[in-house]
């Protein structure tokens, strides 16, 4: 054993000296290797700078957020525009349905005029509400959170006014979307809400037995119409559906999973149901292509021109998709998935003229394109200290 002449003195005592330590050197880790020799120097420099002094400092981040909020507003200043009084006096001719049910229109007008402010309690509440969309959204989220932590209470909150606040978060939502985990977790949260609310509404309807709680119970064939007055509930999205939507399948369809099609030109993809054979025998949701096939082409039999069409989803999958309940407002908002976030560098623009922002201002980090714009920027850079 080559110990370079160092003789180890046996000792039970270990002492951690501050500042340095022996560590085993197991060769270069990929990360270390990349740090030593970056593939792309420019990019490495940029990334490194991000570690030390983040490109988006907290202040710039706050600025972006503020700017976006401003862009989202309807108007620059809050416009308080009152509803103008009606000229002529006769208003809200049909404001109360109680009066309009008379067929006599002459009487109708006068009585409606008297009853101008007679709204039903629900309507009055809605009209007087000054809530904004953000308020409604927060309410909804608060309700979801409440349902998650305390289903009983949430059910009670919902209970006293069955027709006003109503439990109309539409149907159970145990749908699992393959693309994001967030969506499915939020969906299960919503399922909890519906379950809670279903409990509240149990006495309201005898048919509540039809309401599945959250058991994944694939229904063979959902009731096909709503004539019976009850809503049709949805089984979970089948596993096949989610599996087929797996991102790894973004690659062109592989021959082993696809049914080769050799009866038409390369444009077969355009006519959506390509060939009856590619359907499951009971494919009834999307009927087979029954119209005359395209004009034969000499290249039809050419093996090089064969289109490969991915297997068509089964009726089960389609049924699950078509009867799935709507996502909630937040779930439907498109977001970058984790691996996509930051896949492409964010483009930066000159804050003065809008060309590429190649240069950063030393003081505030704002991007500008060249000297001329930098000078223009500097004039106001000092002023903007308090931003």
């Amino acid at each position, binding site marked *: 054993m080559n110990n370079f002449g160092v003789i180890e003195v046996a000792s039970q005592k270990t002492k951690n000296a501050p500042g340095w330590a022996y560590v085993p050197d197991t060769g270069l880790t990929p990360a270390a290797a990349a740090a030593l020799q970056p593939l792309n120097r420019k990019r490495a420099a940029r990334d490194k700078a991000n570690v030390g002094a983040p490109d988006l400092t907290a202040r710039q981040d706050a600025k972006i957020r503020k700017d976006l909020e401003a862009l989202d507003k309807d108007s620059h200043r809050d416009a308080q525009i009152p509803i103008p009084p*009606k000229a002529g006096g006769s208003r809200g001719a049909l404001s109360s349905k109680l009066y309009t049910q008379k067929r006599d229109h002459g009487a109708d007008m006068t009585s409606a005029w008297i009853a101008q402010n007679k*709204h039903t309690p629900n*309507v009055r509440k809605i*009209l007087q509400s000054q809530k904004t969309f953000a308020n409604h959204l927060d309410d909804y989220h608060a309700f979801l959170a409440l349902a998650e932590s305390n289903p009983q209470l949430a059910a009670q909150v919902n209970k006293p006014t069955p027709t006003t606040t109503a439990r109309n978060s539409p149907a159970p939502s145990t749908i699992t979307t393959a693309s994001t985990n967030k969506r499915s977790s939020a969906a299960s949260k919503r399922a909890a809400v519906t379950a809670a609310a279903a409990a509240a509404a149990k006495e309201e309807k005898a048919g509540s037995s039809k309401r599945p709680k959250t058991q994944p119970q694939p229904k063979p064939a959902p009731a096909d119409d709503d004539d019976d007055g009850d809503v049709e509930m949805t089984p979970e999205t089948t596993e096949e559906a989610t599996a087929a939507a797996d991102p790894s399948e973004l690659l062109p369809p592989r021959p082993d999973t696809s049914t080769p099609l050799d009866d038409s030109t390369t*444009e077969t993809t355009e006519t959506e149901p390509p060939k009856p054979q590619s359907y499951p025998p009971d494919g009834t949701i*999307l009927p087979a292509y029954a119209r005359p096939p395209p004009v034969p082409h000499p290249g039809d039999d050419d093996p090089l021109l064969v289109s490969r069409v991915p297997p068509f989803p089964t009726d089960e999958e389609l049924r699950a998709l078509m009867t799935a309940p*709507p996502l909630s407002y937040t779930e439907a908002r498109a977001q*970058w998935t984790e691996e*996509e976030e930051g896949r492409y560098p964010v483009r930066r623009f000159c804050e003065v003229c809008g060309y590429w922002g190649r240069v950063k201002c030393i003081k505030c980090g704002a991007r500008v394109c*060249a000297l001329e714009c930098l000078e223009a920027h500097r004039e106001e850079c000092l002023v903007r200290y308090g931003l």
Partner: protein
Amino acid sequence: MAGGGGGARKSRAAGPVPLTTTLVLDNGADTIKAGFVSDDKSDDKPRIIPNCLARDRHRKIYVGSELEKCKDFSEMAFRRPVEKGFIVNWEAQKEIWDREFFDDKAPNKCNPSETRLILTEQPNSLPSLQTHCDQIVFEEYGFASYYRGVGPVFNAYRDIQSISRTPQVSIDSPAEVILLIDTGYSHTTVTPILQGRPLHPAIRRLDVGGKLMTNYLTRLLSVRHFDMRNEPYIVNEMKEAVCYTSLDFKGDMEKTWKGTRGEKREDYVGGAGIAKDYVLPDSHTRFHGVVRDYEPGVSARARKTIVSTEDVLTLRNERFVVPELLFNPSDIGIRQPGIADLVKQSLLALPIGLWPGLLANIVVVGGNSLSEGFCQRLQTEILKRFPDECRVRVARPEDPITSTWLGAANFAKHEHASRLEVTKQEYEEHGAAWVARKFAAGLGLDS
């Protein structure tokens, strides 16, 4: 409108006959599209009503279609009942509806107790807002029957194949398979539709719409030219007139760069076909802005003499940077994928076997799609994100703004409408929650 008035009068004369008149209402954030459909006589196109209360600089207030009477749009302020695509402020919305449909002198007068209402809403609404809507429709107006449906889905009832110019023998109604992109005032949504049923798990939304783009243009102009922050109407007019979707963003960007200090770049001086002059309205002789070709020959001094009479803005990269937000929202720091990735995310939630059909039948509606080059750019961007073998077609109807209404008008005549509608009696019997559930469940499966 004449057709509507006629229909209403007719049914009134006939007494309680089965409903023949339907009020089709596409209640957008910017404009309401409204018209009547009945068996014998229907409006073939909707009336477009601004959905706002507006106040001009003399503090006169205009409600809805009264805005047509307004001439001077400077310093116009707006109050809109629809927020993020959903009706939030019913006080204002009711006022506008009353004046347009229910008052004695309303232009589209109708008697709700004898009319069916078909109302569009944006996908993924909040339950509380949906309930409010149902309650107002039945308890306040007392419509005889009513259906509230997801707006984009109604487009399936149009003749989609003729929009994409496919020769065909018969017309499917509803269309078999569509991927509908609706890019409106509040946001942009992607909705895959199969046989007239939306595939809810795959609906995605991008929070970039016409409003955000107008505000962004306002900001750019305020930094570079004049303070336009109190002129939303004028800026919006300008946006509609000059903005286009760039097919070569980098190239256009180079062409509009002024260059480093002292440099005179030919493209910049000559305008490169991109620079345009926009003459602002002066509120005396001209009430609408005018687009002019950029004149490189006019020297700075000559311009100065003109400036005394008119305000001219030279627009360069502002023209294409604004619609670019739909494709790259990250340009202004919005952490969301662009419209092409939106399509991709939506399709990832679906079985791969549906992709070819959806990609070959992409239909774009909504006002933003009117920007020049939008469809072409969208098609190339989507093409890049999918396997080569998928054929991608992006089609835009001639009338992208009223397309949803036209679809809904066809829907009103379709048997699906009678299956989906809820009568007032049913509402009174079962309550708002039941109605909401019925609408959410939609058509069910049989076809």
